């Protein structure tokens, strides 16, 4: 019986498995996932453009060509020009920078806040847990866009005034650029909207993993808490977290465009796809080229992040690997 049980698992499988490790297996699994592979390309491209866009663009994002306003796509302006005669293609490339910084920074902030709050809630339990759950429920019950508008309306003017004062006091030109106020407000609003999701995810993961049998078994073997956290809890929480972060990046970019649409997003002069979409929407019937470019970019990137997240989750989860 014993030998039968062993051969049933297959000799070939054993020989192969012995030469691989978890990460190599994960990469192989990811590579075998067609959607995830397809999704990687636009994402890599996005980061590349965000990093090197300014060197690639045919025109400066502010350069205006008054002879060619609202021009249709041509060999000179691949995606045409806007009302002020600015090259749409160049602006899209610059917009990648905004999109990536919005995605990265707001996700990083909300993830850190979510990790801290979620771990505290999951680990300490009791009142801390109740408080965190209450806070996340409160935040989530408020409509995201309304929250962003309220933040913008209440904080923008005082922040700008403070920057002005700082400039007068220090003469540091950094404080002259009100663009920072916009960015801080947008990142802040996005982080405020997104942290509860991460916090609840982490909390749930900790609660569920802590009660899993393998954690009990590890404790029964005398393993110290720190080791259980790093070897058992964190790796097992990683899959869902990666999916959430990946989807969250796309989500943050879409939210930012919604902010722009409502006039509380990243303001000129930095191009943002959201702003371009909302501007383009006003005259999409007569000049659809203003809308199509940024909208397609936004859609492709959002979908890519979602697919990649799913692919990563499957690849990193050994429980789903046959056998």
């Amino acid at each position, binding site marked *: 019986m014993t030998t039968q*049980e062993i051969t049933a698992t297959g000799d070939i499988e054993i020989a192969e*498995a012995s030469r*691989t490790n978890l990460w190599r297996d994960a990469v192989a699994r990811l590579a075998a996932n067609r959607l995830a592979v397809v999704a990687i390309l636009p994402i890599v491209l996005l980061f590349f453009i965000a990093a090197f866009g300014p060197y690639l663009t045919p025109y400066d994002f502010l350069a205006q060509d008054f002879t060619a306003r609202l021009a249709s796509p041509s060999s000179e302006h691949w995606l045409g020009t806007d009302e002020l005669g600015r090259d749409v293609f160049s602006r899209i490339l610059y917009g990648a920078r905004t999109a990536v910084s919005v995605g990265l920074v707001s996700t990083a902030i909300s993830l850190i806040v979510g990790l801290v709050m979620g771990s505290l809630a999951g680990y300490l339990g009791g009142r801390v847990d109740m408080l965190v759950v209450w806070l996340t429920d409160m935040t989530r019950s408020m409509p995201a866009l309304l929250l962003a508008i309220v933040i913008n309306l209440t904080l923008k003017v005082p922040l700008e005034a403070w920057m002005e004062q700082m400039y007068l006091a220090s003469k540091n030109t950094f404080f002259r650029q009100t663009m920072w106020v916009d960015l801080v407000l947008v990142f802040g609003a996005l982080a405020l909207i997104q942290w509860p999701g991460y916090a609840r995810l982490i909390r749930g993961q900790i609660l569920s993993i802590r009660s899993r049998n393998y954690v009990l078994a590890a*404790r*029964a073997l005398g393993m110290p808490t720190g080791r259980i956290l790093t070897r058992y809890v964190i790796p*097992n929480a990683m899959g869902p977290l990666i999916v959430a972060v990946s989807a969250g990046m796309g989500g943050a970019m879409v939210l930012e465009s919604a902010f722009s649409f409502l006039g509380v997003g990243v303001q000129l002069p930095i191009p943002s796809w959201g702003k371009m979409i909302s501007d383009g929407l006003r005259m999409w019937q007569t000049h659809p080229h203003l809308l199509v470019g940024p909208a397609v970019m936004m859609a492709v990137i959002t979908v890519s992040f979602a697919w990649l997240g799913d692919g990563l989750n499957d690849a990193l989860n050994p429980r789903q690997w046959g056998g």
Partner: protein
Amino acid sequence: MSVLLDVQELQTRFQVRKGYVYAVNGVSFKLEEGETLAVVGESGCGKSVTMLSLVRLLPPAASIENGKVLLRGDDLLQIDQRQLRDVRGGQIGMIFQDPMTSLNPFINIGTQMSEPLIYHRGMSKKEALARSAELLEMVGIPDGEARLREYPHQFSGGMRQRVMIAMSMSCEPAVLIADEPTTALDVTIQAQIVELVKELRDRSGVAVIWITHDLSVVAGIADRVIVMYAGYIVEEAPVDALFEDPRHPYTVGLMGALPSLEGETGTRLTTIGGSPPDLEDLPDFCPFHTRCPYSIDRCRTENPMLEPVADASDRGHRAACWVDIREVEVQSNGAGASS
């Protein structure tokens, strides 16, 4: 033989919304060096909570209210966390019911098996891996070295339980606590696991506490048996005495030979009618009285203590019952002693 583990008056309860669940209510027993003790009782009677209490592995809602757990004289309920971690795995190994979920899916078998060896025995990673390969072969998994690099999902349930046994035995503990280790497995695999534990026990001399809700496994493996009901020990006896001369009505019931309470004709019970008492609201008299065909008035006023039974063939035969069931004629209506 000397006493290895001496559990005295252990009480564990869970805090719940409306009050407490009294899961373990003054449990006392001794385990001798090299002995195998079986713990039996219906699901929910406190077997697991008792064992988890010994090494303080309880969930946050639980608290140990009273008792001593003396391991070679040291009270495990008093030692600090650091000493406790040395006891867990080092002195007391445990295996659990569900081998499918008892291994970390993210770490390969070799790394997982090495950790306690590195931690408790101070081995180098290399030594620990070599030892793990030997241990795998010892529990009947051939080609141990190659299999160290595999992940849990590449092992079947029976194999995983073998790995768990190898891990819990790796630091040569004095006690192995096996909490229903075969319940989740196929019948054929169950028998293999029982054989494996017997073999390892005979080779290493480890004392075993074997928990089960199934009396049929007990005869083949145990020296002594404890029967639990509603967080109490209701009977304790050497294995032969228990099977030949059970004295507690509940034990008789577990063996499938309890006469029916209502005296319905022709019913032969293999399970005991009725259900165990609510552990949140235990009576201060015999907790079995609602299901007991022998019950007398005294059963509803006083809770019987676990005391040596009359005319015992062995001094260690004890039961918690007001009635000497041998002297009572119950309308048994054909309930047979065999099942």
